[in-house]
């Protein structure tokens, strides 16, 4: 269709009715496709604009340093205090702890699926992992509240089983399928020739897996890990249900925490539109958005070879 149009233009006939019809026949579909394609970008731009517009006014109430370093989150007290450090620390703590649990486990699991287990078991393992990935986070949160928390409370003699460890554990389970399946894809894509080269040099299976295959797939694994972290940062339901919800800076794994996401989810419904509290919550949304955008850019940089020395 495009080619037909080109011919008309290059031969340059008189402006007849037929040519006009062809032109419209081209412009209309092209316009529709372009506008549909751009709608995603427009939406994204609109969301960012809206978040900033609603989040920025909090800076009129209090200073950026007070938000970033203040340790008291009392948005409805009089006078209110908007220190977000405990919430940021809570987010960072559960993300870090869940990553520490899920990334090594996920990578080793991926290595097992790609290089150790037989071909038939591989399909089964991948499907089971995907099913684990479909698990709604609210179900996981429920398990955390109803099963893990009481046990943890009794066995470890804690004040509450709803704490950072519980939430991180659940988050780890949640991001494990992402990390493991994406890592497995890149491990499986390492050419057999790389493994052969290692074996031919007298490498054992273990040496081949850890010193060659893992290294060959390191970029894909790094991307998988970052995508897992990204999911962990943004996950709301699990932390809302199982993290305990106390806005304190956690000092131990048994401390309850209140990450940014669960704060927004818990408080947004109860705050008057346009109030400083409302703007503060939107400011947190901006923070989360920028963190995920930054992680996304990191993934893209790894893809384009930015990580290579």
């Amino acid at each position, binding site marked *: 269709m495009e080619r037909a149009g080109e011919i008309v233009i290059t031969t340059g006939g008189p402006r007849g009715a037929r040519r006009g019809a062809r032109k419209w026949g081209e412009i209309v579909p092209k316009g529709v496709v372009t506008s549909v394609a751009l709608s995603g970008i427009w939406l994204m731009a609109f969301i960012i604009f809206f978040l900033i517009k609603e989040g920025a006014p909090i800076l009129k109430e209090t200073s950026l340093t007070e938000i970033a370093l203040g340790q008291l989150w009392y948005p409805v007290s009089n006078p209110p205090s908007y220190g977000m450090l405990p919430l940021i620390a809570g987010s960072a703590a559960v993300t870090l702890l869940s990553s520490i649990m899920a990334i090594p486990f996920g990578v080793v699991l991926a290595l097992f699926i790609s290089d150790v287990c037989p071909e038939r078991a591989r399909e089964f393992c991948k499907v089971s992992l995907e099913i684990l990935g479909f698990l709604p986070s609210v179900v996981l949160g429920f398990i955390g509240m109803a099963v893990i928390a009481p046990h943890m409370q009794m066995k470890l003699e804690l004040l509450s089983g709803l704490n950072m460890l519980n939430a991180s554990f659940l988050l780890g389970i949640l991001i494990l399928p992402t990390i493991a399946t994406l890592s497995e894809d890149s491990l499986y894509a390492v050419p057999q020739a790389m493994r052969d080269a290692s074996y031919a*040099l007298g*490498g054992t299976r273990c040496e081949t897996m850890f010193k060659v295959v893992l290294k060959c797939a390191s970029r894909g694994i790094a991307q998988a890990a970052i995508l897992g972290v990204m999911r962990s940062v943004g996950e709301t339901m699990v932390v809302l249900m199982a993290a305990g919800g106390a806005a304190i800076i956690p000092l131990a794994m048994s401390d309850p925490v209140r990450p940014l996401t669960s704060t927004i989810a818990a408080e947004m419904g109860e705050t008057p539109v346009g109030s400083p509290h409302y703007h503060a919550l939107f400011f947190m949304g901006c923070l989360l958005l920028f963190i995920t955008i930054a992680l996304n850019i990191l993934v893209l940089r790894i893809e384009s070879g930015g990580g290579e020395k």
Partner: protein
Amino acid sequence: MEEAKMVTKSLFMSYSRNAPPALKDVTMDIRANSVTAFIGPSGCGKSTFLRCLNRMNDFVRDARITGRVLLDGMDIYSPEVDVTNLRRRVGMVFQRPNPFPFSIRENVAYGPKLLGARDESVIDEIVENSLRSAGLWEEARDRLNDMATSLSGGQQQRLCIARAIAVEPEVLLMDEPTSALDPIATARVEELVRELKRDYTVAIVTHNMQQAARVSDTTAFFLMGELVEYGPTDVIFTTPTDQRTEDYITGRFG
């Protein structure tokens, strides 16, 4: 004439229980410090035979091998043989250059490090000697930390040869090492093969009969899994005894 480095005795090999044998009753010697070429049409079993010599066929599930393969008189298929040690003694260069996506230095150092080399100066020395032997030192000396994949195809293949000889093997198996290279790179690798036989026993699979004639001392002609004829290269190429060998080298088929 040098003595036999490797000997196979009535070697049969099939890729699965019901498949026809890929190798039928192959008995031959590979003499030390010489180049032995395996020629024959595609699918004749020459690569399969080569991969039996360092047990790379172990990874083929359901593969069946009977007969004996001796390295200095030791049966490499006997249960007490350490396969990794065998593969260190019998190195291999593959059809397509397959450097690891590491630096040039790390590629060559991989084998020695597996063997426990830790001292950086020792490793540097091994890297230099191996690259020199593979004729790549002059081109690579200033870029040892560059990625191996930044080298040209011919350089990559010479790097793979350097990587193979870095563990000081006794036998070097080459599976069509020049089939992915251009004529100039091919000539360099062939020259290298002729030099390598001073220190190593070389067995090379090739599609290219001229190459076999140029580089080898002994030639073995395979057809449908059988070793048809085997003897000094000049004899095979001038006065073969088997009609099939003559037909093949004169280009009547294959």
